[in-house]
């Protein structure tokens, strides 16, 4: 009878896996879950934009310019009579794709550089990381501006500019994690059993970088979207008439006296997007790194 009791006890304590604990801890975080729900809605909006938007994003209607928000035009209309709600809905496609693609660019380049630097260390490490440090000396947004200045405005160039300017942060994270993991014994075991360097990097090191990287990616997408909107706001990003939120804000600025609703909605859209990503990122960090949580 005593034995039975003991067995059940040990089972209860040991049954939860690492992933389950992280998931549970994330689910308990109400703010993070709220962020995830907002993000999910945003994704649905972007995917089903043509079905959600009542008008086309560039459908002009010169009889109905400067309409205050109403049942017909939820967010009102702009100076060309375009429906702001529809434009905001379509804008989610632009912002999310810029955010995700730009971050994908920087994660792939930055991650590879970081892994190489951390894995081989010595001169290669020195070379790569000094270069990263110098990129960091130019403020990120300024670097993006300079790149756009060279490449010219436009969606594609915007992705590249934002992507390149955030390479250093991913390189740093991956490098730091790689260096920690490289010292672990199971890597030595893999080396001893003849696995080649690429195999070790892809099979052992990169999977272990995932936790810190995912957190940084989530926060990084928020930053990338802010940056892209900022560049468009000052006229260096996506150009009108494309329904980019930052560009829409810039347009609304001219009509701030009298037609303030034109600045409300695109701004709110940017705000909720970055907010949701920041909340998710914070939640992930707390869940993955219990030591930081209280």
């Amino acid at each position: 009878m005593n034995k039975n009791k003991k067995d059940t006890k040990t089972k209860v304590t040991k049954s939860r896996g690492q992933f389950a604990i992280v998931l549970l801890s994330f689910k308990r975080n109400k703010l993070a879950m709220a962020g995830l729900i907002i993000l999910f809605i945003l994704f649905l909006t972007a995917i089903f934009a043509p079905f959600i938007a009542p008008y086309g994003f560039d459908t002009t209607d010169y009889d109905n310019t400067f309409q205050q928000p109403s049942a017909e035009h939820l967010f009102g209309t702009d100076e060309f009579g375009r429906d702001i709600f529809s434009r905001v809905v379509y804008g989610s496609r632009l912002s999310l794709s810029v955010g995700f693609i730009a971050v994908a660019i920087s994660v792939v380049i930055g991650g590879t550089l970081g892994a190489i630097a951390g894995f081989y260390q010595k001169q290669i490490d020195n070379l790569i990381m000094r270069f990263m440090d110098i990129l960091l000396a130019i403020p990120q947004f300024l670097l993006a501006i300079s790149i756009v200045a060279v490449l010219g405005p436009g969606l594609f160039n915007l992705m590249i500019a934002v992507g390149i300017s955030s390479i250093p942060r991913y390189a740093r994270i991956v490098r730091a994690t790689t260096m920690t993991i490289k010292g672990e014994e199971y890597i030595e075991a893999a080396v001893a059993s003849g696995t080649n360097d690429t195999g070790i990097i892809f099979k052992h090191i990169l999977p272990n970088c995932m936790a810190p990287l995912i957190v940084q990616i989530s926060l990084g997408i928020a930053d990338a979207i802010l940056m892209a909107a900022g560049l468009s706001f000052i006229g260096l990003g996506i150009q009108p008439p494309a329904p980019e939120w930052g560009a829409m804000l810039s347009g609304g600025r001219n009509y701030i006296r009298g037609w303030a609703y034109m600045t409300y909605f695109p701004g709110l859209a940017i705000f909720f997007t970055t907010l949701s990503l920041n909340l998710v990122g914070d939640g992930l960090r707390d869940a993955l790194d219990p030591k930081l949580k209280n």
Partner: protein
Amino acid sequence: MSKYLVKRIGYLFVTIAIVSFIVFMMLFFTPGDPATLILGNMSTEEAREAMREQLGLNSPFLVQYFNFVKDLVLHQDLGTSYITQRPVLQEILEVVPNTLILSFVAIVIAVVFGVALGIISAVRQYSLIDAIVTVFAMIGISAPIFWYGLLMILLFSVQLGWFPPSGFDTPSQMFLPCLALGIQSMSMIARMTRSSMLEIIRMDFVKMARAKGQKEVWVILSHVFRNALIPVITVIGLQFGMLLCGALFLEVIFSIPGLGRLMIESIKMRDYPVVMGGVFFMSLCVTIVNLITDICYALVDPKIAKS
């Protein structure tokens, strides 16, 4: 300490040198013909060729870079604007005070309030004030600065009429942009202070200080805060670069003649020497601030000072 300082200053020069190279490279590879920009589309090919020769644009890349550095070091010459034909440095120096005032006031606001709110919210963790600070900090880092800058104009200038919506000559004109710029960094600093305080507050030496019979106020200030300051200084240093970029938006929104606005206008007019001069100048500011950060770091953290 002095060794550390020498190393850091050496590092500053290396960084400046490489930034100058990157800036020049960008200048070199930007599309468009400077001679055409200067002389206009109606000019003759001979005139343009003469202009290129005069600008030294026909020399190889490295020769051009060497001349660029020589002018920069010997004559503090960042080049000449294509549009106004005036020295870039002069154009920059005319507008830079506004940018620096804006950034400086904003960082003071951000540090004072950010650190204070961070401390309060860490000490009263889970209290109402902690919740409020956390929510506001989250809003502060998520909301785009160019959006709430506009909202502030809308509320304080258009609706209430308390502050003018543009210009940067009187304190009342400066108030809104400085506040708007400060809010973003304040949020970051408050978050960092809070989490760093919370990490330290659980450590044994804090319990030890309490076990000595030390008053809680002093435990927090002399033990917890002094340790929490180390990561906070890093964030403050990093904030400066962000602030300069944030200032750029506010200069646009509040029509302030500053470095950021000068650069944006120059990009639109393809006046690349001014753009790259501006990039170089800002990077220089950031690098100098980083040096100051490193020095503060050494003053706070004995591990650096001694090694």
